[in-house]
């Protein structure tokens, strides 16, 4: 997306630096080419040295001729390069700061979308390469030092950087409630605020300044420069360090310090001095604007809420300071900015006595100050935008052309003063405008040179003022479901969805590999449960005993009530009964009865006994046999499953090892359990003397996999860049290029699963009682797997064996089995729980992926293109009305009672319900109609509703108040319309057609800029 002017990419330095000799440090890498001086300053500007044709470089005093060319010094170039680099790098840091007002974006996003910071946006496009995340959000920007160097090979680079440095230095000063003033040869003008605070210099800052600007060898340049009264210097430093920024309130500073003006140290050669003066107005410019307040806090480390205005002074707020940069650093930055600016003009041949500290200095004066006359071309442009005659107002809103300027307030009769705050604010706006114009021109020029034979990208078209075309193109793409734009936006979610889906599949596959182990365990548990339920036994030995007992109960005639005894008893009964029958025959028939007859007599007995035998067999023998068969089957199942679990089946072994590796994988990335040797990436970093990246179990449980990957990558980068002083590079984690490797992703997933499992275990209140027993038994050589596969009795026996083999050191003797019963059960439960929570964690992670996939689906469904289309439509339609809006300025004055009416519209039939629902005074609708023509739309109600996104009442009130300089304190539509109406009255005349047109142009420009952020 970044527009990189080809010249910045291709330009070669015109002067190659000399290669350093062996052993010498490398000096400045580039030299600045010479430029025509008249590219920077207007020839013949008052008091500016005249260019002598053909002359070469040289710094001459006022009135003397100077050379046609200027070549800026290497030192100054280095200061400029560092300034640009620091400024842009600070902006990139904001990508890591969430926007407190909108959690969906970072402060960087917010700043880049803010029209006041369009300059920063342009700069980032010139010098930064944006990296986007899957959702298209900017996650990182790298600043190209090479492009900055090439930029400074161009005169535009120097002009733009000078303006930016002036602007940023002023902002820093304002945010601290100061303004800066140069005082050559004594006090030059009476200033707005009475307090004078000398710029406190401490030696540390000074040393760094000298070193950075001039290098370590130029020690004499600054020596003695800031050598004033040490006591005063330290007091002022104290004030800067502890007054506004720290705990000591201003009341603690000796009153004599206020207003004290002492002989200042001077720039060495001509006695130029720099003061810092408190300025309530300058402070309020920043402090009253939430955007600038946030900007200086985030980009400059100054929290303006740490200060408060008390009377004409700015004092420390009664709060814990949140300014993150020290007074030293801020002071250093400001000093460097002021000094570099002076050096720049000096090298251009502008005498120092021509210069103020910053161009705004004239705005602080109470009386008649003129702006510095440097002859700088861009300053003329700023003044054109600012128009001092019309933009310097008094507190009654009168400009300098008004004969009542600075006279009594027409309403209150009170004396008026300069509107310092408004004047500074308007001047800053003019500076932004000029700087933006220069930046745009520079980019446009680059494009014009390179883009003639190819189709320009939308971004490039923006620079060529093709705003409406760009917006309409964007609109067309937004409504076309097949457009690259829509596909691109949806692709971000689709890709993420696919990524999560792949992760989920991989997780499922890995989980599937655990199935043989789990199935075998399940089968073992079921067999044991069945044996216990049906036969009261659950281990092999008990089952064998039960089988033997059952068998014995069938065949052992010595066991009372056994089947054999009962069977034999029946046979005995049979014999007895038959004998009894025979005995009962008449003796005369004995031996004479036919066999048939005998059989007929004994058969009932046989039948009865046979029946009882059958019954006995069915009731006892068959059932016991069945039990034996069942016991045998259960025995086989238990035996078989135990065999599988005891390292005999490959699938089960592999699954069990995989399960055991979860914790090992975790400990390669996350922290080890308490009491264990330190492990994980953070521990590795700390051991290597590097800061940790923050991979703990809480992060592992709560953050998506990609965030964890990012931290692992960050650890890798830190390890690779480990300084030699710490032992040089070490390999930790892996680079982001490796993130897609399935085994690494699985490692992270295992880590997450284990972290989740540990979380579940920590939340189990019963676990604390189990763990000591588990640890004790495992310490006596039983494995976690055995605790899951053996029965209670088997564990007892294992421990009894351990007791024997260790000579009583491990386990216990059989006599103590009962006493150790709960211990065994706790250990078994813990072993089972460990497996259970890990399987739950797998399920949880799987569901987590499902949820993330669902999120992407919802995000896809939630992409609403309509709102953007409506905003673009409204913006384009408004821009297309530009001429008509300007023409209507006369109508607005003529019908001011309508356009600025504050009457309610509730009962007015000329307005739709949608309009009435907004609840604004009538003038709001008239002004919105003037700007947008909404009343003529076929879908008037709907269109009006769309307009609420770009021009709600409060927004329009602010725009009108600002651009018509109405000076309304409580800004709402009613107050603004009342003030407008009063000022449009010919008897007042402060808002004429001229002011209206200018305001409308500014408002349209604001709408255009905001529209372009949609199209970006």
């Amino acid at each position, binding site marked *: 997306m970044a527009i990189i002017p080809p010249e910045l990419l291709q330009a070669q330095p015109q002067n190659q630096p000399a290669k350093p000799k062996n052993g010498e440090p490398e000096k400045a890498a580039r030299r600045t080419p010479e430029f025509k001086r008249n590219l920077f300053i207007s020839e013949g500007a008052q008091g500016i040295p005249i260019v002598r044709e053909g002359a070469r470089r040289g710094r001459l005093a006022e009135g003397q001729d100077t050379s046609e060319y200027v070549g800026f010094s290497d030192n100054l170039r280095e200061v400029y390069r560092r300034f640009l680099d620091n400024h842009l790098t600070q902006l990139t840091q904001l990508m890591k700061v969430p926007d407190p007002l909108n959690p969906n974006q970072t402060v960087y996003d917010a700043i880049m979308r803010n029209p006041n910071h369009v300059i920063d946006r342009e700069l980032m496009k010139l010098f930064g390469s944006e990296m986007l995340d899957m959702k298209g959000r900017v996650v990182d920007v790298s600043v190209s030092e090479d492009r900055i160097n090439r930029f400074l090979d161009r005169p535009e680079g120097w002009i733009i950087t000078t303006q930016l440095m002036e602007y940023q230095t002023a902002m820093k000063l304002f945010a601290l409630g100061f303004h800066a003033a140069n005082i050559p040869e004594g006090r030059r003008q009476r200033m707005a605020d009475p307090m004078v605070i000398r710029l406190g210099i401490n030696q540390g800052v000074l040393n760094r300044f000298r070193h950075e600007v001039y290098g370590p060898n130029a020690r004499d340049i600054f020596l003695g420069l800031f050598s004033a009264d040490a006591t005063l210097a330290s007091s002022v430093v104290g004030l800067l360090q502890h007054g506004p920024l720290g705990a000591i309130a201003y009341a603690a500073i000796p009153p004599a310090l206020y207003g004290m003006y002492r002989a200042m140290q001077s720039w060495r050669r001509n006695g130029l001095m720099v003061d810092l003066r408190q300025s309530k107005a300058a402070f309020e410019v920043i402090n009253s604007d939430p955007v600038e307040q946030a900007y200086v806090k985030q980009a400059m480390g100054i929290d303006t809420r740490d200060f408060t205005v008390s009377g004409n002074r700015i004092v420390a707020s009664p709060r814990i300071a949140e300014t993150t940069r020290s007074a030293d650093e801020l002071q250093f930055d400001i000093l460097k900015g002021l000094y570099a600016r002076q050096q720049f003009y000096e090298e251009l041949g502008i005498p120092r006595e021509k210069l103020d500290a910053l161009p705004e200095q004239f705005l602080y004066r109470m009386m008649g100050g003129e702006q510095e006359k440097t002859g700088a071309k861009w300053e003329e442009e700023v003044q054109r935008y600012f128009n001092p005659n019309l933009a310097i107002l008094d507190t009654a809103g009168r400009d300098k052309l008004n004969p009542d300027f600075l006279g009594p307030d027409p309403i209150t009769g009170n004396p008026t003063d300069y509107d310092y705050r408004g004047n500074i604010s308007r001047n800053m706006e003019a500076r932004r405008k000029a700087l933006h114009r220069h930046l745009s021109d520079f980019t446009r020029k680059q494009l014009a040179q390179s883009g003639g034979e190819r189709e320009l990208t939308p971004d490039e078209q923006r620079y060529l003022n093709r705003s409406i075309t760009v917006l309409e193109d964007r609109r067309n793409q937004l409504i076309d479901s097949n457009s690259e734009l829509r596909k691109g936006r949806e692709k971000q979610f689709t890709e993420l969805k696919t990524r999560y889906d792949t992760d989920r599949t991989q997780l499922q596959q890995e989980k599937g590999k655990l199935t043989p182990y789990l199935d075998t365990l399940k089968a073992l548990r079921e067999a044991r449960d069945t044996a216990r339920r049906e036969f009261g036994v659950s281990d092999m030995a008990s089952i064998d005993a039960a089988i033997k007992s059952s068998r014995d109960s069938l065949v052992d005639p010595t066991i009372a009530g056994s089947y054999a005894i009962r069977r034999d008893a029946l046979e005995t009964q049979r014999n007895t009964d038959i004998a009894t029958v025979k005995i009962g025959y008449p003796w005369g028939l004995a031996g004479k009865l036919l066999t048939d007859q005998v059989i007929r007599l004994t058969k009932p007995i046989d039948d009865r006994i046979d029946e009882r035998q059958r019954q006995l067999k069915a009731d006892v023998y068959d059932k016991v046999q069945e039990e034996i068969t069942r016991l045998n089957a259960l025995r086989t199942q238990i035996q078989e499953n135990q065999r599988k679990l005891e390292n005999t089946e490959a699938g089960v072994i592999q699954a069990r090892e995989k399960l055991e590796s979860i914790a090992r994988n975790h400990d390669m990335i996350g922290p080890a359990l308490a009491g264990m040797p330190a492990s994980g990436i953070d521990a590795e970093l700390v051991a290597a003397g590097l800061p940790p990246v923050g991979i703990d179990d809480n992060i592992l449980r709560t953050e998506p996999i990609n965030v964890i990957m990012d931290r692992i990558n960050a650890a890798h980068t830190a390890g690779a860049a480990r300084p030699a002083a710490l032992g040089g590079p070490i390999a930790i984690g892996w680079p982001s290029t490796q993130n897609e490797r399935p085994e690494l992703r699985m490692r992270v997933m295992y880590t997450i699963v284990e972290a989740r499992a540990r979380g579940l275990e920590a939340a189990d209140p019963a676990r604390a009682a189990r763990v000591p027993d588990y640890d004790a038994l495992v310490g006596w050589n039983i494995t976690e797997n055995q605790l899951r596969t053996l029965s209670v009795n088997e564990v007892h026996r294992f421990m009894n064996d351990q007791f024997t083999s260790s000579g009583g050191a491990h386990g216990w003797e059989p006599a103590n089995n009962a006493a150790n019963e709960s211990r065994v059960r706790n250990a078994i439960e813990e072993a089972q729980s460990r497996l259970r929570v890990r399987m739950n964690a797998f399920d949880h992670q799987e569901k987590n992926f499902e949820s993330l996939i669902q999120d992407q689906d919802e995000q896809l469904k939630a992409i609403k293109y309509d709102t953007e289309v409506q905003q673009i439509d409204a913006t384009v339609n408004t821009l297309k009305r*530009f001429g008509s809006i*300007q023409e209507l300025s006369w109508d607005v004055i003529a019908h001011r009672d309508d356009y600025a009416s504050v009457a309610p519209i509730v009962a007015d039939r000329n307005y739709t319900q949608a309009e009435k629902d907004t609840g604004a005074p009538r003038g709001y609708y008239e002004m919105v109609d003037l700007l947008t023509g909404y009343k003529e739309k076929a879908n008037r109600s709907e269109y009006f509703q769309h307009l609420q996104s770009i021009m709600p009442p409060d927004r329009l009130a602010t725009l009108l108040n600002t651009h018509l300089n109405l000076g309304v304190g409580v800004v709402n539509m009613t107050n603004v319309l009342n003030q407008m109406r009063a000022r449009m009255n010919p008897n007042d*005349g402060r808002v004429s057609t001229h002011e209206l*047109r200018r305001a409308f142009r500014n408002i349209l420009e604001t709408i255009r800029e905001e529209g372009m952020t949609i199209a970006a």
Partner: protein
Amino acid sequence: MRLTTKDVIKILPIEEDVRVYLLESVDGSDPDRKYLAEKLVWEAYDTLYELKLEENMQLAMVGTKQGQERLDKDFYKRVREQTEKEMQEEAIQNTEKVDLSEARKAMEKIVREIQASKNVKR
């Protein structure tokens, strides 16, 4: 008197070819060109107004020294009204004087181009 964008183009002190270009732009079909032209035209008009205001202000100040003008609370208002009036009078005069033949030619050219473009599409 309400001035239109075209009225303003006619009264701006610019070269004829620039005037024709601006008229073409505000009547043309390129919305960006129209927008930029309108912006330029009205900014230029208001700059003229400011210059005229400054000039009148200086004249009026001289007038006060010569007793022809009073330096009272309505001084500034009178100068502004006078400036507004002069601008409008100038507009009326210039609008009547301006030779629109070049502009007409330009418009004919645009109509021809539009017609040609439609023919191509058919």
